[in-house]
């Protein structure tokens, strides 16, 4: 839009007292710096209501204003005509075919004279006269949702399963896996009865070697990960020198369910993002029966260009299903996800954009680090912070540097939206859909990178709540492990032996070690206190050395990595708490057993993590 036209619209809005002079000046200043249309800027900055702006615009250019009489226009809708294009085409280009009579095609648009819309229509209907009807973005989405609702739900739930059934966790075990586990159990029972000593010895060796492999792998990753500190991937200077006019539309999915306590804070946090507000496509994904959260969100008065998507009730009621639904409506070039309690660093989107520009097309996702703003709440939040710090600051950068599959974290993963759609989105049946997606992307030949930006979340400060959350993660890891081990040879062909090894050690091995760790601790304590000969009988020679290594080096490494990670983050108060790492490990074991039970009896159940338990909104040292 030319500048004088912008001014004209602005003057009309001024005349109607819809905006003030300073509002207009502010919008024009933003437009000069970041580009974009003046109307979209005014709306996204919350300076004018969308309905008022569009009304004024329709009056000015002499177009019908559809939002005034939506029900009337809905009656015109011709489903056969609408099927001429995919939903994504309508969403991205913000239009909808309404009716076609003879040579006249009536369409709804949110932006008049959009050349791209005209080009798309001309390609399909070579010889038509297009008549435009202006409508607000929100109303357009509402109409599209009412038309496509069933299809969107079906796609969100079954899309991945229909296209790639072998990658869906909707079946927990395949037939061949069931047969394998039955044969394995039978073989062990048989050998335990007839070769008891050898069987116990084998088990001890197997688990000790698994522990050892896991410890060594962690050690290597931590060394490599630590060395990454020397190179800052995206620098502050790069962010500052970015021309905001070149920034594309960025979609942000915000799945929220029963989060009335934190939704207001989340909206405030999202407003702090350093990204042109008119180029943000923010989609809140509400379950349609979650009226309390929806009402709280409305009370927070987000700008009119932020969208509320209401997910119809359907099974499974999981976050990935909601995200798949939201993905259908996202219109950005890039997309990220934030949870309800997230506080991303303001420049994160810009960093992600630069990261994509600097990477080759194979890199389809960047994972930001996650950490906690309420780490000082209690002992649990401190230990949780220790774990997250070494996971996101050492383990994941280590995997990244070694080009191994990276299991994504729950939020703040930034995608090229086109590739995300190509991958089939998230698996709605997997309760750690993020980890699964990271592995799946790698198996399809894509890469996941690590972004040097942090999102602060709320750490669980209640043990029960923590166990619920952790059991979901462990269950999801088991699902991911089972899904990608359905065709091991094919998986090895896709990701190589190193990638396969990562899956076994990092995903499956991690849960398995948590499951068996309490038994080894028990064995150790019984031997320590009673001097029982049973344990000593098996622990001789090589097995003794391996056990000693696991006990001493394994525990040391767990403690030390936590120490280093919080030291690096300058959380000096937390360093001493690293000594409690073995106790935290046992807590994870408890969650792992709960996860295993649920895998058999309630595999798709989403253990809801309650947020808003902390009294703190911001930690003392999170400053942005």
């Amino acid at each position: 839009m030319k500048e004088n036209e912008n001014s004209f619209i602005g003057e009309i809005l001024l005349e109607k007292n819809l905006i003030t002079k300073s509002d207009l000046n502010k919008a024009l200043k933003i437009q000069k710096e970041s580009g974009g249309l003046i109307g979209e800027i005014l709306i996204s900055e919350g300076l004018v209501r969308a309905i008022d702006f569009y009304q004024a615009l329709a009056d000015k250019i002499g177009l019908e204003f559809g939002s005034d009489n939506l029900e009337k226009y809905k009656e015109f809708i011709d489903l056969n005509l609408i099927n001429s294009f995919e939903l994504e085409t309508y969403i991205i280009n913000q239009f909808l075919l309404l009716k076609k009579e003879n040579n006249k095609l009536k369409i709804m648009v949110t932006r008049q004279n959009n050349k791209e819309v005209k080009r798309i229509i001309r390609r399909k209907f070579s010889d038509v006269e297009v008549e435009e009807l202006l409508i607000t973005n929100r109303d357009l989405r509402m109409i599209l949702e009412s038309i496509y609702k069933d299809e969107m739900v079906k796609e969100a739930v079954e899309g991945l399963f229909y296209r790639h059934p072998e990658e869906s966790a909707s079946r927990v075990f395949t037939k061949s896996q069931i047969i394998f586990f039955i044969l394995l159990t039978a073989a062990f029972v048989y050998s335990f009865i007839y070769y008891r000593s050898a069987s116990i010895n084998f088990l001890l060796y197997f688990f000790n070697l698994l522990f050892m492999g896991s410890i060594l792998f962690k050690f290597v990753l931590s060394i490599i990960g630590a060395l990454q500190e020397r190179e800052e991937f995206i620098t502050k200077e790069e962010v500052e020198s970015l021309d905001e006019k070149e920034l594309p539309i960025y979609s942000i999915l915000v799945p929220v369910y029963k989060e009335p306590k934190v939704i207001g804070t989340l909206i405030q946090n999202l407003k702090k993002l350093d990204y042109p507000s008119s180029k943000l496509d923010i989609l809140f994904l509400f379950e349609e029966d979650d009226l309390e959260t929806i009402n709280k969100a409305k009370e927070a008065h987000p700008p009119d260009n932020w969208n509320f998507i209401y997910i119809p009730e359907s099974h499974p009621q999981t976050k990935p299903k909601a995200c798949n639904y939201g993905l259908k409506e996202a219109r950005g070039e890039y997309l990220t996800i934030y949870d309800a309690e997230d506080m991303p660093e303001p420049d994160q989107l810009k960093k992600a954009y630069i990261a994509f520009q600097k990477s080759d097309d194979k890199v389809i996702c960047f994972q930001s680090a996650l950490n906690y703003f309420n780490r000082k709440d209690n002992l649990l939040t401190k230990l949780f912070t220790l774990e997250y710090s070494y996971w996101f600051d050492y383990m994941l950068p280590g995997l990244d540097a070694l080009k191994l599959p990276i299991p994504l974290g729950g939020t703040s993963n930034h995608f090229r939206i086109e590739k995300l759609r190509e991958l089939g989105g998230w698996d709605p049946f997997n309760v750690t859909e993020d980890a699964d997606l990271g592995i799946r992307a790698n198996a399809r030949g894509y890469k996941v990178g690590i972004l040097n930006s942090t999102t602060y979340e709320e750490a669980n400060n209640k043990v029960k709540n923590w166990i619920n959350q952790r059991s979901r993660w462990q269950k999801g890891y088991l699902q991911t492990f089972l899904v990608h081990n359905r065709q091991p040879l094919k998986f090895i062909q896709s990701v190589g032996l190193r990638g396969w090894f990562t899956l076994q050690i990092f995903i499956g091995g991690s849960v398995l070690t948590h499951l068996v760790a309490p038994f080894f601790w028990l064995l150790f304590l019984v031997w320590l206190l009673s001097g029982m000969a049973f344990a000593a009988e098996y622990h001789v020679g090589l097995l003794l050395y391996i056990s000693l290594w696991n006990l001493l080096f394994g525990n040391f490494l767990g403690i030390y990595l936590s120490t280093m990670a919080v030291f690096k983050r300058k959380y000096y108060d937390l360093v001493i708490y690293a000594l409690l790492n073995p106790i935290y490990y046992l807590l994870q074991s408890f969650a792992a057993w709960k996860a295993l039970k649920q895998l058999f009896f309630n595999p798709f159940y989403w253990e809801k993590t309650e947020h808003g338990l902390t009294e703190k909104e911001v930690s003392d040292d999170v400053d942005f």
Partner: protein
Amino acid sequence: MMLIFKLIIFSFANYFLTEYFKEKETAYLFLGSLTTALFYLLLPEFIIVLPFYIVIFFFALDQKEKKKRPAQLMTFLMPTLAATFSLSYISWVYGYGMRLIYLSGSIFDLSAVGVFSLNFNSFLLNLAKNIPVVSLIYLFMFFWLLFKKTPIRVYVYLYLSPVLLYVGYSYINGNNPGIIFYVPMLLFSLFYFLIFSDEFSLTMERFFYFFLILNFITLLLYLLAVMIILPAFEIGLIEYLGNLLNPVLVYFKEYAVENWPGPGLELIRYFYFR
């Protein structure tokens, strides 16, 4: 040859630790602390110079970050303490009780545990023989301070650690590692040069190269000389000092090292099942 390898590891540890103080990157602290612990496992006598490191890691920081002091110290110390505990625990498992210091030999080799000898006379003799060389090596430091005229940063003292270690090592074993000790020392000097090269002026660089070469030559000459000439009165003086201090050392050996009062397995069992 094994000692050369161990001391090269030590040089690397000091290199990483000095880089940490200079670059403020925790990756160096991570690597340096782990390498130090590895060196402790290879040469447990290192524990003698550990207090020296403790002072550095406690004090080397900005005064404004007081909370950082214990955190930095703990982060550095933890691997070495874990290694100390591990060796002690292994000894305990084998029925030798908890001990603070373990001397070289295979960790799992029972016969190697607890071998300890003190020869104070020999120690002083060796020290006297080596002091000129050691001092010469520290001329690097002297000239750096002289020309830069900047206050001494505490981490600069890491440079002194090889001498302290040498003292400790000789203290316990009563022998002179000779050239296999000096080669890693020179290596360490090179590392040091590498770390601070961007802070040196051209004149300083020339001085460094000059003294480095001089050190090599002196080292060779010195080792040759001590094999031929050793003044008899020097030996007498050293023997006299040795006799004077020997009771203190024997006390240290008996009560602080060999009879470390760690908990024995039987004691714990008694506590639980009495």
